[in-house]
């Protein structure tokens, strides 16, 4: 006797199928993703693709306009702007990703924990979050830098801290809804530990809004880094960083050598724009309410 299986055959779609579908449905998001990917490749492979040493002064080539030798021109120290922008992508992405991920994950833990435990833990955590969120991101970051000083690590800390409550607040809202569903009660009555319930049953259900927020955070963090550097409170010369390049060129060379400020400004704007477009598209793709629109 032959057994008849009733299970439908598993159709395995090629990996690029999802990507193509995403590209078809979210052309702007795809454009954003391309910007992000190009920026990431530039940052990761700076040593190989940058035509010049980004910190080497060349007094024979000071404030040269864009040319065949220097595609984006040179700055006041004769440093190649294209090379500095390529290396600057690394600085932006390191600070952007580290701040966003650390701030995001800390916010995720605090948000889910706050929702799950409720009671006085929730009350205290949320009031602390309220206090932190009362300050705009850049003001909070300025305060942190003023206390701890400048430098890459301190800038990361300065941007990470204000991102934590923003993430925690959103994650908590999603987690509050999940806390009430029967399978969480079932897990509790089955005697599962708190970490297991949080990590296996709650966190996976808030990952979608979390990931969307993470992409927005990277863009915000890059912008905050550029703002701090522009104010002279971020990373310091001779580290190639877009905000710092803008600061060095905008005021003194706006009329005599505008390329010094224009290209780093464009790099900042394009990258933040790319993360923003990609984040929006990701939200549309993940959110079931928006998916079929």
């Amino acid at each position, binding site marked *: 006797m032959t057994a008849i299986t009733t299970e439908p055959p598993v159709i395995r779609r090629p990996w690029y199928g999802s990507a193509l579908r995403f590209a078809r449905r979210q052309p702007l998001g795809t454009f954003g993703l391309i910007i992000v990917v190009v920026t990431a490749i530039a940052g990761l492979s700076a040593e190989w693709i940058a035509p010049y040493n980004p910190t080497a*002064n060349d*007094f024979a080539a000071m404030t040269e306009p864009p040319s065949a030798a220097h595609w984006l021109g040179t700055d006041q*120290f004769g440093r190649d702007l294209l090379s500095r922008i390529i290396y600057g992508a690394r600085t932006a992405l390191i600070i952007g990703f580290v701040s966003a991920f650390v701030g995001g994950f800390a916010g995720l833990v605090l948000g889910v924990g706050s929702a799950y435990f409720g009671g006085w833990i929730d009350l205290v955590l949320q009031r602390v979050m309220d206090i932190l969120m009362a300050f705009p991101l850049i003001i909070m970051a300025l305060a942190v830098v003023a206390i701890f000083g400048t430098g890459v690590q301190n800038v990361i800390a300065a941007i990470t801290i204000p991102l934590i409550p923003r993430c925690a607040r959103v994650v908590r809202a999603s987690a509050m809804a999940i806390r009430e569903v029967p399978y969480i009660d079932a897990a509790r009555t089955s005697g599962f530990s708190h970490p297991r319930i949080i990590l296996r049953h709650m966190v996976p259900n808030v990952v979608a809004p979390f990931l969307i927020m993470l992409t927005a955070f990277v863009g915000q963090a890059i912008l905050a880094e550029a703002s701090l550097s522009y104010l002279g409170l971020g990373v*310091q*010369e001779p580290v190639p960083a877009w905000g710092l390049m803008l600061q060095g060129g905008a005021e*003194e060379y706006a*009329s005599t050598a505008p390329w010094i400020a224009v290209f780093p400004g464009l790099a900042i704007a394009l990258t933040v724009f790319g993360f923003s477009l990609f984040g929006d598209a990701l939200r549309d793709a993940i959110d079931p309410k928006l998916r079929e629109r």
Partner: protein
Amino acid sequence: MNAPIKWLATGLSMALTAALVATPALGETPKRGGILTYMIPADAPPSLDGHKENTFATLHATAPFYSTLIAVNPENPSSTTDFVCDLCTEMPKPTDDGKTYTFKIRKDVKFHDGTPLTAADVAKNWQYIINPPEGVSSARESYMVMVDKVENPDPETVIFKLKFATSAFIPALADPFAYIYKKDQLEKDPRWFEKNIMGSGPFKFVSYETGQSMKGERNPDYYHKGQPYLDGFVAIFAAKQSVRVDAIRADRAATEFRGMPPSARDQLVKELGDKVTVQTSDWNCVNLITPNQKRKPFDDVRVRRALALAIDKWKGAPALSKIATVHTVGGLVFPGSSMAPTKEEMEKMVGYWPDIEKSRAEARKLLKEAGAEGLKFELMNRNVDQPYKFIGTWAIDEWSKIGLQVTQKVLPTGPFYDALRNGTFDVTVEFNCQNVVNPVLDVAKVLPKSVYPENYGGYEDPKLIELYNAMLHETDPAQQRIKMRALEVYALDTQVNTIMTPWWNRILVQRSYLKGWKISPSHYLNLNLANVWLDK
């Protein structure tokens, strides 16, 4: 032409050029009237008291209200030796083997409240400046170490008795901060002048809006007859350079009196053409790169020598002068001074060798010997663009050429000074900025902290103090110059206590209708505006 004469000639010609640039065409008669508006590149000064403060923000706002005993010649301020009477009647010849100076005071001077100014006022002010009473601070106390006492035998005479004869006395006496306040008020409340103004200068106080503006009007009773030419002035505080450049571009201000970077000069000249004039001068200010000898490995002279040897000043100075307010390679002494080293003398010291490849090879060898190859350290700097950050960025690139890995830590002014005073840095960019060119006193910056409180190198060195004192007490100019060289070689070459960077370059862009004002080697000098007029 031998080297010293050649350098002296170069210095004189530079001074002459600066003077000629600024001198109104012969036959120009000053016109009376008009209000001069100028920018002060700072926020509000900490106080209005010249005796207490060191900042140009105080001086640029208040100098037009006050008189001083003597001053640099306002018609020849680029000279480092031309001093004239302001309140006195004649520059005195020293007596008692150069240890006594007797000044006769003018009889026609009145304070702005109408009361007469006498020698008693002058003497009391100098007594307070040299020996401030308890609770009163004097920023210039240390400049007057040579003065034993100030006497006032009659209403027209002030006598300065010195502990030892020195050429440093007259330049120190021409300090532009040494305002002559009213004696009665000074004795009643020495701190009154921190918030109030009452002098005898060419302009009378009208109003002060903290951090915004200072206004003055012509003093009709001014003792230099015919002056001032202006009806008044408005000084506007604006810390941001773009604001100041915009103000001059739009003719909302005629100038500023500190200094602008080359990019601002180029921009204004390009846009305004002959509507502006440019005056430039070597500036009695210099950034120093000072290792903290209390920290390893900077206590090792080989490491300090390597830091100096890596920097190519001869190539760096002309390049930096295009983007920053620096210009001239020099030693410890202001380059325009007769006490300054010649190029040949400098080229014998580390950090000045003409062959930079040989210099850097020696630096690498010294680092290897000291076990400091590939040394990583932090260069502390002040959050001021011109020229601090330019100097820092340049030095870091130069050091990278001998394998050093240096990062820059930029601090706002308050924390920067805290770190300097607490010694919490590896190597720092700092500065030595003086007003009247007075090499004998100006070089005291390299003396240990126990002698000169604003030294941050963290070293004590009796030999350095001995060399300095020998030079300070020498009255023969030729011998004094030789002793200055010995001090310089010891501080910059033997011990490398600090590394000189190119001396600053003062660039001023002014509306062409502003006449009579001449540039000097210091942004602290020639600011009472008595001889300034508007050709409108």
